[in-house]
């Protein structure tokens, strides 16, 4: 589930936003008092494979009342085991994922992320581990590349940070290849300063 996945990725050196896994409303409100707004709230449920499919992601929370409402909505979702309340980072949504391929071993994908990722399928696959220049060539191959380079006056994504994040992730995948099946970081939110793991899921190897 998400909190565990983010914990592991944070250990691996990935930039994860500050969050709390609130098992009750009080913990959620306490985090808001400390961090301020805007926040995002996401259901934690072993039954929700893709949280947004069950209405389990509520973004743009700007007040204590909105947080209370969000928490109550999430608590009605099947398998509810608390909510993640997390600082919001603005930027471009990428997907950074990994899979253990039978023939080629650990591979990494990078591309345009979000919920429609399979529909647009604008992603590039490479065998792990990666070098920094591999990340450049992956970005070169994306149709969405102009969005990363600062489309229509938007700030470009910080390539230095992205390179480091992808290389670090690819090494992490090589290290844990014996234990995992696949990893989705979707979205990885990138802006001119950071590349942040906004949501992540690790599917461990069966057995």
């Amino acid at each position, binding site marked *: 589930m998400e909190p565990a996945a983010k914990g592991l990725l944070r250990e691996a050196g990935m930039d994860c936003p500050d969050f709390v896994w609130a098992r009750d409303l009080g913990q959620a409100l306490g985090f808001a008092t400390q961090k301020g707004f805007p926040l995002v709230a996401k259901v934690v449920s072993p039954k929700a494979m893709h949280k947004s499919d069950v209405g389990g992601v509520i973004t743009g929370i700007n007040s204590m009342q909105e947080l209370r409402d969000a928490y109550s909505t999430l608590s009605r979702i099947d398998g509810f085991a608390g909510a993640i309340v997390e600082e919001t980072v603005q930027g471009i949504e990428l997907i950074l994922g990994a899979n253990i391929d039978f*023939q080629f071993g650990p591979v990494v994908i990078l591309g345009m992320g979000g919920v429609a990722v*399979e529909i647009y399928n604008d992603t590039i696959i490479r065998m792990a581990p990666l070098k920094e220049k591999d990340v450049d060539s992956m970005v070169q191959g994306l149709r969405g590349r102009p969005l990363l380079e600062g489309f229509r006056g938007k700030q470009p994504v910080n390539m230095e940070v992205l390179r480091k994040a992808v290389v670090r992730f690819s090494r992490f995948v090589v290290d844990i290849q014996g234990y995992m*099946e696949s990893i*989705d970081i979707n979205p990885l939110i990138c802006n001119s300063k950071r590349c942040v793991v906004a949501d992540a899921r690790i599917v461990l190897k069966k057995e």
Partner: protein
Amino acid sequence: MDFNPLFYPESMAVIGVSLTHDRHPANVIFSKNLLRYPVRIYGVNPKGGVYMGQKIYKAISDVPERVDLAVIAVKADVVPVVLEQCIAARVGGAVIISGGFAETGRAELQRQCTSMAKRAGFPFVGPNCLGIYIPSRVDTLFLPTERIIRPEVGNVALVSQSGGVLVDQMLRFAEEDVGLSIGISIGNKAVIRETDLIDYLGRHEPTRVIVFYIEGFGENEGRRFVHAAWGCPKPVIVLKSGKSSRGALAVSSHTAALAGDYAVFSACLSQFGVIEAKSESELVAFCEALSCYQKSIIGKIAIVTGSGGHGALAVDLCSKFGLGVPGFSNELRERIRQRLSTSIRSIASLANPLDLTGSAVDDDFVEAVAELSRNEEVDCILLLLLPYLPGITADIGARLSAVYRREGKPLIAYVPHEDKYMMIIEGFELNGIPVAPSVESSILMASALKRCQVC
């Protein structure tokens, strides 16, 4: 393991020759090598006797010399025993033609052969394969000589998981005048696998281009293959089948859905500079181009044509395959213009494509190509040569080839493949210039030069 006795045998035993059944695979192999190849050949059958006037030996140990290659064409169950006898007789290597192993679910029988061979350091090709074909040296393909079409001797090595695909590609190579250095059908690849052959063929002197037809790899084998290809000094081309498998399987994550078997295969190949042919016609075009030129281009293509329409088609295709068609500088245009016949100076279009028009003669093509060959603005010249133009003679292929010999800039010709144009085509091909049978194929050839990272 030393593959040389296996692929370059001086002597060869065919185990399983029948005394009565002429079309038995072993008999086909025995007779074609006896009649047509320089290798010393011995037939083996436990019954002994005489076949085609030759003594048949009862066992490999009875053969009067230590043979380099044993071709094993006996029932699957007997193969381990025969293999053991070959190892004991210090045979150099084997081709196991017999089927009835992993492909029919008898993985254990195959494992038994593999571990026996590995323990003894004994290389074998197969089982369940056609074996090897080396022009004018040896041929273990159990297809009657008169039925197969053999390409010329050349520099392309063809390794195929399927024997049928190997034979079919040989036919295509013959059609397109691509020469073969060695053909290997590896079948179930119980011992010798693709990665071993990259290492061997990378050092194989007659081979300049290595081609694989691959159905699939074992666990992590794709990783070893691309690493080996990356270290190989020769271009490696792969044709893959089974691109559409597993598409419908439910998958557990976005990444697993996006990184399907074939998507990963294709991406990893290109990451490590392996050239993937998406179809058989791409494969032949890539082979022909890379067997002529081991020189990479950036992709600044000059198109020289006698027809505006062909030029326009070629420009579209260049754009589709990521090749540039840069406009010529005024200086270059003027230099070309000065060299054209006075009759076409005012009608030729000196842009890129350079359209010399239907009134051009051999000299115009030769002069324009010579000028372009000396110019840095382009790094490859596509020649859309229409042999039905009245000013074109049968000499043009040989004359343009001479320009390449002198100037060294890659030249790719399109000439319709018709018998009556053969002298033009051969004028190019026999002088090392690739000739495509279609405009598209000529552009595929240029794209192979661009994609070749070791060239």
